[in-house]
């Protein structure tokens, strides 16, 4: 359509005006194709992260140390599955299909948060994931509650509420460990040592190296830069670690009174790039588990379709 016109598409100007005035873009509104594609990519990545994120935490359902913790963990993982479905639905409003998105995930064409390619080795990791991983997710998602695409923004509002509950649960696990025996406290510190840098990586590459950011900011899909969000996270986490009596594994971490923020060391970006390429500790097993669930369940989904078809045929026959 645009090619047929001599000047710029007037619809694009109207779209940008809506975005600039903090209006929401809704599924049936006109939108640039690149905006649609960017959103499908981002929302589906977000959905994939929720679904893949069930694995590292699900790894501890069988071994949760008390019944109260077990029930809370099952409920949390169930919430994540719900978030995944909710986000796939939001992406479907843009014309994507869930089956295609899931296929793209399993074929390795789609990405998900690198954090879920790290293993949960101890019970403390369940606490640390709640505290840091959900904490980082909330910082990202609170910003996204004001994103320009209506269904995504509304999904974020609902998801943020549940995530903040998860974060409190995680932190509470660590409080128990840090007030417990020396062995429990060591478990908590060891866990923080492993998860701190991967958590900082959750905000994506630094602003100088973030190729998609400028356009996303102009479209108000993204509201704050990766580095701004990361700084927020560090500022929020340091006093929480102090309260626990844990040491953040960064020798360069210190308060900068002039900036009013904590300075912190260089994120190990080489490691981030490796995990992003598929070479993290668990990338292969996460994908393999998803593929296995899909393949092992194929006969069940086929049966459900076959049964529905039989029922429909019987209903038609009895109506005739």
């Amino acid at each position, binding site marked *: 359509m645009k090619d047929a016109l001599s000047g710029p598409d007037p619809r694009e100007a109207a779209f940008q005006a809506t975005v600039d005035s903090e209006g929401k873009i809704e599924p049936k509104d006109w939108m640039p194709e690149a905006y649609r594609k960017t959103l499908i990519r981002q929302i589906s990545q977000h959905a994939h992260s929720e679904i893949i994120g069930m694995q590292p935490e699900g790894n501890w*359902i069988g071994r949760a140390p008390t019944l109260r913790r077990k029930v809370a963990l*099952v409920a949390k993982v169930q919430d994540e599955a719900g978030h995944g479905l909710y986000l796939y639905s939001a992406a479907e409003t843009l014309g994507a299909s869930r089956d295609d998105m899931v296929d793209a995930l399993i074929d390795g064409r789609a990405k998900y948060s690198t954090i879920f390619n790290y293993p949960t080795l101890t019970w403390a990791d369940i606490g640390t994931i709640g505290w840091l991983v959900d904490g980082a997710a909330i910082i990202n998602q609170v910003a996204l509650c004001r994103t320009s695409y209506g269904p995504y923004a509304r999904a974020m509002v609902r998801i943020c509420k549940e995530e903040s509950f998860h974060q409190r649960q995680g932190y509470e696990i660590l409080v128990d460990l840090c007030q417990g025996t020396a062995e429990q406290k060591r478990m908590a510190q060891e866990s923080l040592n492993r998860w701190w840098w991967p958590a900082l990586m959750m905000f994506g590459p630094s602003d100088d190296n973030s190729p998609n950011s400028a356009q996303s900011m102009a479209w108000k899909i993204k509201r704050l830069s990766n580095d701004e969000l990361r700084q927020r996270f560090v500022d929020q986490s340091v006093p929480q670690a102090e309260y626990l009596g844990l040491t953040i594994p960064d020798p360069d971490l210190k308060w900068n009174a002039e900036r009013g923020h904590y300075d912190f060391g260089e994120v190990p970006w080489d490691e981030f790039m490796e995990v992003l390429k598929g070479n993290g500790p668990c990338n292969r097993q996460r994908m393999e588990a998803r593929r296995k669930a899909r393949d092992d*369940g194929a006969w*069940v989904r086929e049966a459900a379709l076959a049964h529905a078809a039989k029922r429909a045929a019987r209903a038609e026959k009895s109506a005739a």
Partner: protein
Amino acid sequence: MTTVSNDDLFAYALRLGDDSLILGQRLGEWCAKSPEMELDIALMNTALDVLGRARGFLTYAGQVEGNGRDEDALAFLRDVEAFGNVLLVEQPNGNFADTIARQFLFDAFDLPFMEALAASADETLSAIAAKAVKETAYHLRFSREWTIRLGDGTEESHARMQAAVNEMWPYVHELFEMDAVEERLCAAGVAVDRAALRDRFERTVADTLAEATLTRPETSWRPVGGRHGRHTEQFGHLLAEMQWMQRAYPGCTW
């Protein structure tokens, strides 16, 4: 009114707690592995319901016993021979049809059981059961519908569902077993008369299997023993996983 002995009441609350706990532990193993994301949610939902009632029964058992054992001491610090759950709930998940067969047979029994227990003279048992009735009605709807879908689905799903029902069927007999503990509690109006539930169970099974185009298995093998701590070989592995933290780090607060 017959007096109720604490030993009997403890044993009864404990075995009801164990049935729920072990089923919940098994269902939790499906996390992120089921055939569809919606099924992950449904199976975890059922797990949450049965774990919730396990907590109620075990907490009560600990109170009745009066030796200071709480739900966690009972769940995590007993060995195989002290668990009183039926063998059905400890059966491994197998494929999705196996899990559905285990769940359907359990639910078909559990709904009339919880309805009857809701009328128990014991207020705590009655309250736990009243809540469970609503949950179990939903569990039964889910497991019954999937039994029908798989039974009357494709040739492959039919074969798998029939095999699963055949595999689980021998274990249903134990659900109706009454021992001296339950006979005494039943006389006092506390425990449920399991034999009285058989007709309704059989009707639910017959209706469902007919709609699912499945055949009711015939078997002379009727394994029992779970109520008295004689479990299957897999059960120790289940406990090894479930109890590992409490065994490896005794005396900690989590």
